């Protein structure tokens, strides 16, 4: 039976940590608009070609209304972040979304990120010192990848260092589609919501230099600002969107570069490759998680296939990023690839708000690691790296390293 006739289970099972499942190439070639069955049992339509994924992500007819009554549920327990009611408080599209995006976007400009570099470098150096002190082999994910982005976001939100670990737990719980029970997810969401309400009240009473204080200072909707509940949810969303994604990518990036140590050596010899190397690991990340779901409130056509109203589409950016029609030698890692218009941050009006932050964090981590631990290597064979199961965002369980 060909892929055209069968209904694939999605996510597609994959035993290797860093390599793509064989089905991607076959789907791109012969079945670019494929029927898939989600963990909930609901059906969706999977897109794997570069041109289709790019077009759909930028097309406002493909909405993010995953809470529509006939939208596919991602897992039996619900859809985690994607289907939650909380996700409806931030405007989904049109002028209101653009207004929200621009109020928050000023915090993620290239200049702001450049200004954050010194403090990020300091955080990375301190975390690496601690890891080295604990002795080798060490787990680069637990020691560096997981804490760094949550420290950076907590700083941006004005959250004290003492509360960082609670933030880590909440973001882990809210992004997981299968590991936690519905009761645990709801409890975490409730605690997080309460914490942020108290935190906002404190910022209102005593404003700081942080993003939330400035959003409060703009005023309410009548003054061109956001409603209280929107500020609160924005704070929650920034943590959930910015923590686990980057944390996992740090571990995957380093693993990909160490899997063939000539890559690491090329970067040691020429650190000016750091920027393009980061982009190339983002492009080739075969374990980026679920992809982006979209819901169709009206009939629409993709690649000559009519998709009926009510269809839930899943865009696999990771499969699209390996499309030979968009990238020369798409399966090869080229540390100097340029331009590299990969879709790992999405495309269009909803493309990742925090992409400049993520890029800066990844560049800083790589720069500091190359400088401080030039002898870095994986402490286990690549085949023994294990995937984390159950996350909307894919990652490795641990990244054991020596130096």
């Amino acid at each position, binding site marked *: 039976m060909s892929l055209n006739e069968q209904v694939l289970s999605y996510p597609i099972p994959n035993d290797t940590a860093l390599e793509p499942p064989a089905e991607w190439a076959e789907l791109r070639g012969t079945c670019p608009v494929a029927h898939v069955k989600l963990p909930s049992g609901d059906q969706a339509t999977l897109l794997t070609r570069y041109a289709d994924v790019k077009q759909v992500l930028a097309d406002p007819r493909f909405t993010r209304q995953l809470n529509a009554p006939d939208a596919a549920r991602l897992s039996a327990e619900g859809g985690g972040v994607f289907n939650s009611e909380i996700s409806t408080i931030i405007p989904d599209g049109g002028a209101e979304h653009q207004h929200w*995006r621009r109020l928050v*976007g000023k915090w*993620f*400009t*290239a200049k702001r990120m450049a200004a954050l570099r010194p403090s990020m470098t300091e955080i990375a150096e301190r975390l690496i010192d601690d890891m080295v002190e604990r002795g080798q082999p060490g787990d680069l994910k637990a020691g560096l990848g997981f804490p760094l982005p949550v420290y950076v976001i907590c700083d941006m939100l004005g959250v004290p260092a003492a509360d960082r670990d609670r933030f880590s737990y909440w973001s882990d719980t809210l992004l997981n589609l299968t590991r936690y029970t519905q009761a645990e997810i709801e409890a975490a969401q409730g605690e997080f919501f309460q914490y942020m309400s108290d935190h906002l009240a404190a910022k209102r009473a005593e404003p700081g230099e942080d993003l939330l204080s400035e959003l409060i200072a703009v005023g309410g909707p009548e003054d061109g600002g956001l409603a209280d509940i929107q500020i609160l949810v924005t704070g929650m969303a920034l943590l959930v969107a910015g923590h686990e994604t980057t944390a996992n990518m740090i571990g995957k990036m380093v693993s990909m570069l160490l899997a063939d140590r000539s890559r690491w050596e090329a970067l040691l010899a020429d650190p000016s490759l750091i920027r393009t190397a980061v982009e190339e690991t983002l492009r080739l990340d075969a374990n980026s998680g679920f992809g982006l779901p979209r819901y169709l409130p009206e009939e629409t056509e993709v690649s000559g296939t009519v998709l009926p109203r009510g269809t839930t589409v899943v865009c696999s950016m990771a499969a699209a990023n390996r499309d030979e029609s968009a990238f020369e030698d798409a399966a090869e890692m080229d540390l100097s690839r340029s331009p590299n218009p990969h879709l790992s941050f999405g495309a269009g*009006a909803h493309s990742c*708000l925090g992409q400049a932050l993520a890029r800066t964090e990844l560049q800083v981590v790589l720069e500091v690691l190359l400088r401080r631990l030039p002898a870095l290597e994986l402490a286990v064979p690549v085949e023994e790296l294990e995937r984390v199961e159950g996350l909307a965002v894919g990652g490795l369980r641990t990244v054991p390293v020596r130096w």
Partner: protein
Amino acid sequence: MKVIVDEVKCCGAGQCVLIAPEVFDQREDDGIVILLEPEPGADQHALVREAAAVCPAAAIEVSEGA
């Protein structure tokens, strides 16, 4: 080379500023693109082409030969 930017499409990703800071900037108050140099010099052409190619919102248009 002539460069046109679309402020309505722009999503403030900042890639153009990272790649070609002499040609692009972002507004302080919302992160939207500012075109510093609509007719950049030859030394900037490769960078401008890269910035246009990777812009997630396809908000940069480059016309060559002009």
